[in-house]
């Protein structure tokens, strides 16, 4: 059992981070904390990709006489794209939170939902 954990510890770490992030996104009430959870969640996937491309004793994948064993560059390049996506998502989310704060004077989800529910009852009746 211990061997199973130690031999593939990089994947276990990324799973752990993934669960922490997912928990933060679902369970936290504060909108910014949700975004922090989202970032942890995405970073865990990046780590998963990066460790997947690593080869033991591998060098950087460059044209070099001593680069007999080299890492797989594709996952690393893919994750550059995914990092850009993640940053844009965070930027959009933070911009949204600023507008939410201006409109509701709060970034606690339960308070905002209470205000919204009250509004909906008013329009219905």
């Amino acid at each position, binding site marked *: 059992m211990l061997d199973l954990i130690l031999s593939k510890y990089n994947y276990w770490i990324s799973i752990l981070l993934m669960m922490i992030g*997912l928990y933060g*996104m679902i369970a936290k009430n504060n*909108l910014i904390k*949700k975004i922090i959870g*989202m970032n942890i*969640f*995405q970073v865990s*996937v990046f780590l*998963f*990709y990066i460790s*997947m491309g690593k080869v033991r004793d591998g060098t950087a994948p460059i044209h070099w006489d001593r680069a007999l064993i080299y890492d797989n560059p*594709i*996952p690393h390049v*893919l994750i550059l*794209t*995914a990092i850009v*996506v993640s940053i*844009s*998502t965070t930027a*959009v*989310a933070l911009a*949204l*939170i600023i*507008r*939410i704060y201006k*409109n*509701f004077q709060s970034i606690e989800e339960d308070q*905002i*939902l209470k205000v*919204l529910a009250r*509004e909906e009852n008013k*329009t*219905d009746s």
Partner: protein
Amino acid sequence: MILYIVIIPLFVSLLTPLFGMFNRKYAYFISLLGAIITFLFVIFTYKKVVTHGKEYYWFGGFEPPFGIEYVVDGLNLILLLIISFIYLLVIIYSKKSSEKEIEDKRLSLFYCLLNLFFTGILGIVVTGDIFNLYVFVEIASLSSYTLIALGPKRQSLMASYNYLILGTIGATFVLIGIGYIFMATGSLNMADIKSRLVPIYHSKMVRTAFTFITLGLCLKLALFPLHIWLPNAYAYAPSSVGALLAATGTKVSAYALIRVLYSVFTIDFDTNVIPFNKVFVFISLIAILAGSFLALAQKNLKKMLAYSSIGQIGYITLGIAMSNEISLQGSVLHIFNHSLMKCALFFIAGGIFYKKGIENINDMKGIAKEMPFTMAFFVIAGLSLVGVPLTVGFLSKWYLLLGAISQKYFFVIPVILISSLLSFIYIWRVIETAYFKDSNSTKSSSEMPLGMIAPVAVVTILCIYFGIFTELPLLLTKEAIRILIGN
């Protein structure tokens, strides 16, 4: 040739804020021009694919599996046609509607995002590279979060935020799944992955990849238990955005799901290696019933249409899950038909809001006297949603029923009938209030402006046209199924 389908909306989206600085009207005209050119390119591609069977573009001239490939075959051809057509209509419609709902200074940015959204979904449809698919999913999602947040009410902000959280979870799940596929095969090209996966179907890695990708796409697709983000996002977004999300957003995710299930994995994996399809049939049936029941309870017209969308998505996934030729054809047909119907219905809901400023069904008493053409189109599109013969809705439901019979899933038949009845009830509720209840004030007719009613008229007429002259959709979908099932 195919490259331009994606490149033109992208460039237009970059140009609109630039020209919008000088005059806001330029933003609209450039977008319109971009949409027309994109549509023409799709028509050219259609002619080429019909004669040659397949069109592809290799990035940098690198042969796939090494380079990124764009490919158009029978399956994505039908989606390209419907999406580029709706792109054109939405741009035309949004001129009047967005002038009212969106602040003037944001108007050119609105067109920028609109074009960016279509870049994303056209990209999802044409790409043959699975990581490219993820990137385009994110482009489309990011622009749709912002578009929803532009809505006139402040609820739109929370709707957009919820969609952002759930959409990101979905897209990241897809990313994890792609990672597992890459670990297992070392390839990212869909056609290449398909052949490389066959010998390692019993590996746990492949199954995990499958689970993550389908779950992520189902979140994007708003399949019933994962639908929470959808109703608010559709209801509080600007009218034209609601229409384009309902008509193209979820449909493209459905297309991506079909691609993954049948073009990356094979039908053998979905049914025999893991019993995915059998479970998926039941989930779809629950989605059909739940969507229809929830739609009954809504007071807001747009929310009612949104919940009805959830039910209709159930039909699409049902066809995918039954996985025989006829049901898959019904499913692809339903993607096509539902795009048309929901586009018309959301356009009409937006038009009523534009003219009257009302959203609740109870306030629409006697509205048919004031907006006779609009409500006539609503009746036609609504009947199409119910699935009355001679409309497009009937055709796809008929194929789904035939598919269920040939698969011997007889319990599907009552569910489809009940759900059709339920959809008749909720459409009838609107028709009854609009036609048979007296209005408080008797005003003369106040139709939508021509720029808004013309797209509605075109889509509604197509709803009937393709219901009667069924050759074109049937031909296109048959070609699609031939590719999926493999001769």
